């Protein structure tokens, strides 16, 4: 491995002495030069911009960025709004929805993902057909997913109507047009889209379980159910965590899905922090408040991802 550490000039003992050529020095710096643009781009456009947004959150920018600092006023505002429950402030709604949507999304993705993975792992025929079926929704844009489910759950032409046609006339399922229930439809669409991915992760994890452990369990007389519950699933804990982190981070970032399922978001009942940020920044011309909500989103994600990334880069150390 070429060490790129600083070379100490060697003390020479003969009259013939060759020092590093100019071209040689350039070649040494070339790798760093090649990496530099990408790193600088990331530094400026990711970290720099985040700092900029942070800065904006301390200003009173309205439709355009200003530099009038007003301290933590925006944060205080959001903090107050968190507790404004009657009538609920947009921010309160956003937070509640985040919890509801996030919780349901994560839980059902994990549950379904694990269930499907265990089922698929049972040496069944047709895995080659089934697995792609569970996975294909991932190839779709969230907009397409939302559009499809909006139609599917539409009471007048979708599920409710179809069930009525089949005879069960008292069936009601107007969630997708009901402002209070819209967020659950977003969760349904989200689970449909992403559970396949979780399934793929769990399936890979299941297949990585050491066969000898299972043989030992068999000798110990454990039933299939017991073996899964007491041995296999605990071994999958790292996969759980990975999946949890990926899902949590996707839930927080969800924006396209909400928009496409709820349309124009009547009354803001399906507000999420991501839509809150967008509407306050670009529609309501309250850029500073929008920035503040963005910062809060960032902090939440950082709290989840940084420990994870730190542990990952540490493991890979050479």
């Amino acid at each position, binding site marked *: 491995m070429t060490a790129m550490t600083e070379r100490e000039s060697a003390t*020479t003992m003969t009259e013939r002495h060759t020092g590093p050529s100019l071209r040689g020095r350039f070649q040494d710096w070339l790798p760093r030069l090649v990496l530099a643009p990408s790193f600088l781009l990331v530094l400026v456009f990711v970290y720099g911009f985040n700092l900029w947004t942070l800065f904006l959150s301390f200003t009173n920018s309205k439709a355009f960025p200003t530099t009038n600092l007003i301290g933590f006023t925006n944060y205080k505002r959001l903090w107050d709004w968190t507790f404004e429950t009657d009538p609920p402030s947009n921010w309160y709604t956003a937070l509640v929805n985040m919890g509801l949507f996030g919780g349901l999304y994560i839980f059902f993705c994990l549950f379904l993902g694990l269930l499907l993975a265990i089922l698929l792992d049972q040496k069944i025929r047709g895995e080659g057909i089934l697995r792609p079926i569970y996975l294909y929704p991932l190839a779709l844009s969230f907009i397409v997913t939302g559009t499809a489910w909006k139609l599917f759950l539409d009471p007048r032409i979708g599920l409710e109507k179809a069930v009525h046609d089949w005879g069960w006339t008292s069936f009601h399922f107007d969630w997708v047009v009901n402002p209070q229930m819209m967020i659950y439809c977003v969760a349904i669409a989200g689970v449909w889209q992403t559970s396949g991915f979780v399934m793929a992760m769990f399936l890979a994890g299941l297949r990585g379980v050491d066969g000898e452990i299972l043989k030992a369990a068999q000798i110990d007389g454990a039933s299939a159910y017991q073996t899964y519950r007491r041995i296999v699933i605990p071994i999958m804990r790292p996969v759980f965590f990975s999946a949890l982190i990926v899902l949590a981070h996707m839930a927080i970032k969800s924006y396209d899905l909400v928009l496409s399922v709820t349309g124009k978001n009547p009354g803001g009942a399906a507000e999420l922090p991501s839509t809150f940020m967008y509407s306050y920044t670009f529609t309501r011309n309250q850029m500073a408040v929008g920035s503040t909500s963005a910062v809060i989103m960032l902090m939440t994600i950082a709290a989840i991802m940084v420990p994870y990334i730190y542990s990952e880069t540490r493991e890979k150390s050479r």
Partner: protein
Amino acid sequence: MATLEIAALRKRFGTIEVLKGIDITLEKGGFLVLVGPSGCGKSTLLNTIAGLEQISSGEIRIGGDVVNHLHPSKRDIAMVFQSYALYPNMSVAENIGFGMEMRGVPRAERDKAVAAVAKTLQIEPLLARRPSQLSGGQRQRVAMGRALVRRPSIFLFDEPLSNLDAKLRVDMRVEIKRLHQTTGTTIVYVTHDQIEAMTLATKIAVLKNGELQQVGSPSEIYDRPANMFVADFMGSPAMNLLEGTVTQNGDVQRVVIARKEGEPILLPVPASVDAGKLNDGAKVIFGIRPEAVNDSESIDRNAKSVVKFDATVEIVEPAGSDTFVVIHAAGKELTARMRADADIRRGQNHTFAFNLDKAVLFDPQTTSRI
């Protein structure tokens, strides 16, 4: 002017010094083997000679020129790697010719050189194949071909036989030795296998923890190890090392080896030792190789100094070509190498003999040979 001169070479990784002042010279056509346990720094040393690692201080000279700052491709060296490092996306011919391609050698000349090397190594039918289609031995030859075609001053080998199975390893070892004898190239070879070191080298450098333990010819290393580590590391089975005490009775010096049961063994001071350095009552470590321990009939007739003693046989290991017998003395186990058809059984009390011509003594404190 020697082909390779290493002077006061030191290498640090951060704060850890992995090579602590190495001095070695190698004459033209010599075969230097760097040998030692894992982590002793031999591969690092090879990499510094190649220029793949930079040194912290010291000097490396190839053909008289200081090469410290030269790029590997400019040092007139060639290297064969443990995994052969054949480019998987190129044919054998392209692999061998790649270096020339990088130097801008025209195609016709390249093809000629590749064909010549392929003939020498008998890999002509393989030239159009990809590395993945070759066996282990074939890949090794291609790797050697890639090195040969450069006609370098020095060949560097980094544990090239470690990836091969036992039989193939022996065959390839002979090939490498033959290559050395026919082409007369200068070679630096790294291995952790001391048998490879002994059979291939004209000069061996034993390393431990980044320090040179001893540099010398194979027989020097084997018969006159500089310290206990070298004595123990080289030779299989390892040299027997027993604790003893020096007694002085007038003019006569003796080495006394105590035993749990029976009489202590009394030995005259071995010929290799400078008797003036021994004091009465000094503790020493007595070293003798298994082949110098035999039963009284089989011991070398020409040996100048033989001492007999009785011992009980603990374990008998018939190994086909020899029988290894483990006996007890001085609280430790002693291994003797006896004839394959030796009539010996476990539990037997037998008369053994030491051939002291090759015996050595070590100072237990410094572990150096006296």
